[in-house]
C-alpha cells in the first residue's frame, strides 16, 4: 500500500536567507499515528503548513492521500482535517453551530450533517454542551470541539498541531484517549506535532525529530530509545569479587561501572540480558541483593539528537502567544 503522506526533498525558503525546511523526506503509512518533534523554529510548523496547503513549496514535492500538494491543493483539502494549535471555534456560536459550519465549509451533504454532528458530539462527550455558546466552554471542551470540527467531513488524514498545548494533565490524558480511539476504532491516519515527549512516546507509532529544518532521526519511539539511550541496570551483590570483566562480556552490554558492591550496566534492553547476568553472578557464588533498572525517555533521545532538552525550547514567542490566547479564551 502506498504511503498516505509522502514528502520528497521538501524545502521551504523564506527570502532573503531563511531555509525553514531543508530537503526533508519522510513517509506516513495509512492508519499510522506519526509524530513530528522539534524545538521552536525547527521547521515542524512550516512542514505542516506545506502539507496542508497553507504554505507554498519552494522545491521538492509532497503528496497527501494520493494528491500532489502543489498541483491539486483542492483535492488535498478535501482529504484532510486540520486541528490547529489556536482555538478557532467561534466564541459567539454554539458548539453545534460551529460543527455545522465546519461541515458546510467542507461541503458535507446537508442530509448527512445532523447525523455526523451527533456522532462526533457523542464521541467527544459534548452532547450536553452542544447547545451552549463556546465562550462558556473550558479549554478541554474547546479542544474536543475543535477535533470534532476537524473530523466532521470524515477526512483520510488528520493533522493535529500541538493538540494538548496549554491543557492540564487530566484533560491532556483525555485528549490522548480520543486520539487512540480515532486511530484504533476508525483507522484514521494522524500526523501530529507536539511539545510533550511523553505524548509522542505514548501515541505515535513512529516519530521524526526535526531541527534546523532537517530531519535528524525517524523511527519508532522504542527503536530510537534503544539507539540513543538504552536501559541502565543497577545490581548490588553480596561479595567483593569484581564482576566487571564478566558483565562486559554479556551480549549487548555497552558499558559497566562499579561503585563498591554496586554495578551500573548500560544495555539496550534489560529483558534480553537479565537472565544471563543473574546466571553468571549466581555461578560465581554470589547473590544479587538488590536489582533495579531505568528505561530511557524520549527526552534522552531528543537531547542526544538536538543537543538540547525540549524544556529549554519551551516558551518561544509565537507559541507562548498562542498559548496565552487560548488560555485567555477558556473559562478554566
Amino acid at each position, binding site marked *: 500500500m502506498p504511503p498516505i503522506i509522502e514528502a520528497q526533498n521538501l524545502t521551504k525558503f523564506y527570502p532573503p536567507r531563511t531555509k525553514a525546511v531543508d530537503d526533508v523526506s519522510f513517509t506516513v503509512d495509512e492508519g499510522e499515528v506519526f509524530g513530528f518533534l522539534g524545538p521552536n523554529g525547527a521547521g515542524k510548523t512550516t512542514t505542516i503548513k506545506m502539507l496542508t496547503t497553507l*504554505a507554498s513549496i519552494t522545491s521538492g514535492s509532497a503528496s497527501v492521500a494520493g494528491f500532489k500538494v502543489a498541483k491539486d491543493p483542492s483535492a488535498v483539502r478535501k482529504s484532510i482535517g486540520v486541528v490547529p494549535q489556536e482555538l478557532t471555534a467561534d466564541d459567539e456560536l454554539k458548539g453545534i453551530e460551529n460543527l455545522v459550519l465546519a461541515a458546510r465549509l467542507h461541503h458535507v451533504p446537508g442530509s448527512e450533517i445532523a447525523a455526523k454532528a451527533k456522532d462526533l458530539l457523542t464521541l467527544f462527550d459534548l452532547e450536553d454542551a452542544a447547545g451552549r455558546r463556546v465562550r462558556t466552554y473550558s479549554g478541554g471542551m474547546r479542544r474536543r470541539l475543535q477535533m470534532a470540527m476537524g473530523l466532521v467531513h470524515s477526512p483520510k488524514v488528520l493533522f493535529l498541531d500541538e493538540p494538548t498545548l496549554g491543557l492540564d494533565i487530566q484533560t491532556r490524558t483525555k485528549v490522548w484517549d480520543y486520539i487512540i480511539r480515532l486511530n484504533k476504532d476508525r483507522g484514521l491516519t494522524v500526523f501530529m506535532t507536539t511539545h510533550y515527549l511523553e505524548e509522542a512516546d505514548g501515541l505515535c507509532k513512529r516519530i521524526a525529530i526535526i531541527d534546523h529544518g532537517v530531519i535528524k532521526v525517524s523511527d519508532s519511539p522504542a527503536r530510537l530509545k534503544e539507539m540513543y539511550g538504552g536501559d541502565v541496570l543497577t545490581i548490588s551483590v553480596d561479595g567483593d569479587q569484581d564482576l566487571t570483566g564478566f558483565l562486559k562480556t554479556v551480549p549487548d552490554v555497552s558499558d559497566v561501572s562499579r561503585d563498591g558492591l554496586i554495578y551500573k550496566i548500560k544495555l539496550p534492553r534489560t529483558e534480553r540480558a537479565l537472565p544471563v547476568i543473574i546466571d553468571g553472578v549466581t555461578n560465581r557464588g554470589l547473590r544479587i541483593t538488590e536489582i533495579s533498572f531505568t528505561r530511557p525517555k524520549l527526552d534522552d533521545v531528543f537531547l542526544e539528537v538536538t543537543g538540547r532538552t525540549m524544556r529549554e525550547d519551551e516558551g518561544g514567542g509565537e507559541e507562548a502567544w498562542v498559548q496565552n490566547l487560548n488560555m485567555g479564551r477558556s473559562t478554566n
Partner: protein
Amino acid sequence: MFGDDLIALTGRALRKWIRNPAAVLPGFFTALFYLALFGNSFNPTSLIPSSIGGFQLSPTELQSIKASILSQTFGGAATYISYLTAGIICLILVFNMAFGGIDLVLDRQLGFLNSLLTAPISRGSIYFSGVLQNMVKAMSLAFLSFLIAILLPNGLSLGKGFGVLEFIGVFGAFGLLAFALSCVFTALALSVKSIDSLVAIVNFATFPLVFTSTALFPEAGFPSWLSDISKGNPITWTTDTARLLMINGGSFTSSQISNLINYSIYLIGFAVVMAILGYVAARSALAPV
C-alpha cells in the same frame, strides 16, 4: 459551491453581529447622535442673529432669511437635517466599512482564517463574504438612520413625490458606495497582519475622503481647488445623488437629471473597478506564502 460557502460564511458573521448587543446598539446611537447633534449644533441658519447693528428682524423675516439660505446654499432643503441626512448616512457607511475589516483581522489572528484556507472552499467566497457582511451591517444602519432622520423633530422632510423609485435610487446609491468601499477595506483587512496597521491606514484614508466631499458642507462654500477635488470624490457622487432624490422628490431640472445620470454611471464604474481591484488584492493576500 461558491454560493453555499458565501452564505455559510456571511451567516456566521451576521449571527455573531446580531447576538452581540455591544456591536449593534452603538451603531443605532451613533446614527441618532450624528443626526440629532450635528443636525442642530452645526445648523448654520441658527447662527443668524435676530438683530444686526441695532436692526431688529421680526420672527417672520428671520424665518424667511433662514429658508432662503437653505434654499440657495443647501439645495432647497426644507430643514438643515434634510440636507444633512444623506451626508451623515454616507459618513456612517464610510466608517462602518472602514472598521468592519477588524473582524477579518481578528479571524486571521485567532487562526480562523487559516482554518478556512485548509478547507476546500472558494477563496473568492472568503473575500466576498467579508464584503457582503459589512454591506448588510452598514446598510441596516443606513436604513435605521434614514428612519431616525424622518422621526426627529424638524427632521428629514422628503420632497414632494418621493416614492418607491426615489427610495430605490437613494439606497441604490448608498449600496453602490457601500459595496465599493467594502471591497477596498475587506481586501485591506485580509492583507494586513494587525489591527494597529488597519486602524492607522483607515484613519489616514477616511478623514480626507470625508472632508473633501460634500457630505457635511455644500460645495458653494468650498475654495475652487477643494471644489475640483470634491467633484471626483465618490462620497460626493453618493451624497449629491441621495440628497437630490430626498429633497426634490420626483421633480428635477434637466441639469439635476444630468447630474443624477452622471453620478450613477460614476458610482457603478467605481464599484466595478473596486470589486476587481479588491478581488485581485484579496487573492494575493490569501495565496500560500
